[in-house]
């Protein structure tokens, strides 16, 4: 995944759009929202497990990003900067939620994914993956998603989270081991 640039909604670079917003064209911020919305929504949903929580965190991140836009030191990497804000908000939301819901409603998951045809078995498998993911410690889930789903390098994850590379590798390793155990339990392998 490239965080420095998302979908090309318009030809303007992130830096050009940021400059427009800072010059007073607040509506131009919609370009950045459209550019990064899908990419970041996926992370938030996987991290928080519930679409409602994910949308709240994502909206909050976009609003905070707008409010702090002048503090974005490298506007060309707006995406990476905003993703850091989102990751922080997901951590906050995850901590607040605590034990309130480590599970999610089956019907809710059906709403999560973009509409497409797939067999029931596949859908059930996806539910089990998300359920297993939510049983990981928050730190482990975060590290796993950033490494294997968002496909960031460890150096990038370290910069994003403030956690050392060695600790991150351990978290990812443990997350993989735990997912394997949880999902193999489901299949009885």
């Amino acid at each position, binding site marked *: 995944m490239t965080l420095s640039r998302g979908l090309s909604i318009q030809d303007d670079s992130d830096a050009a759009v940021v400059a427009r917003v800072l010059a007073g064209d607040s509506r131009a911020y919609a370009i950045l929202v459209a550019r990064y919305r899908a990419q970041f929504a996926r992370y938030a949903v996987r991290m928080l497990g519930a679409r409602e929580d994910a949308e709240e965190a994502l909206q909050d991140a976009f609003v905070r990003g707008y409010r*702090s836009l002048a503090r974005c030191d490298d506007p060309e990497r707006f995406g990476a900067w905003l993703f850091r804000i989102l990751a922080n908000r997901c951590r906050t939301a995850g901590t607040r939620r605590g034990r309130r819901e480590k599970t999610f409603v089956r019907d809710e998951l059906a709403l999560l994914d973009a509409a497409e045809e797939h067999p029931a078995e596949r859908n059930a498998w996806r539910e089990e993956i998300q359920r297993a993911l939510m049983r990981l410690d928050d730190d482990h889930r975060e590290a796993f998603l950033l490494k294997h789903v968002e*496909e960031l390098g460890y150096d990038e994850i370290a910069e994003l989270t403030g956690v050392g590379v060695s600790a991150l590798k351990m978290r990812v390793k443990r997350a993989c081991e735990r997912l394997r155990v949880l999902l193999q339990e489901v299949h009885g392998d």
Partner: protein
Amino acid sequence: MVTERNVDPFIDEIAAELRRPVRLDARFDDRVMAAIEQPDVIPLRPSMMPRPWFGRRWTISVTPVGAMAAAASLVGLLALGIWRVRDAAPQLAADSASGPVLTPVADNGLQYHQFLIVAPNARSIMLEGDFNDWDGSKTELTRSSDGVWSASVLLRPGQYQYQFVIDDTLRVADDKAPRVPDGLGGENSVVTISPRAR
């Protein structure tokens, strides 16, 4: 960026499923744009950003009598050969029209605000807020012997929301400051920095 490629087919399969796109509420973009257009959400302009002391523009106010006295003092010091730099205070740029440097009476509005929280049993406390992109790692509070944690942050006049993060896990609002809903079921504290009277 892909650096270390996973070679575990099982994990690859899981990751591939998790990479599938998700669907957001169709009105999501509209909600975001409506939120940012609230009157209290104003992006700071670059010209409003804090600058380091050496980059600030200082305004010097000198009365004629003061200027004469200062000039006399300066001449006296030079004549006695005891001129020296006493400390690392900002070297204020005085142009020829301003006369000698005396005391800065105005700056660009930056003010230190001290954040305090009493938590004798905490192991660490970070400060997250609008002023540091909600990244607690940038602002760590220091503990005094009586269990009071504090941090001073340089802020421009304006309103900022913030929280304390205790032991990397517990996020709390400041009970000595006004609070507002944070949209995530909790509360943020609000600090207002007023412009200095001139």
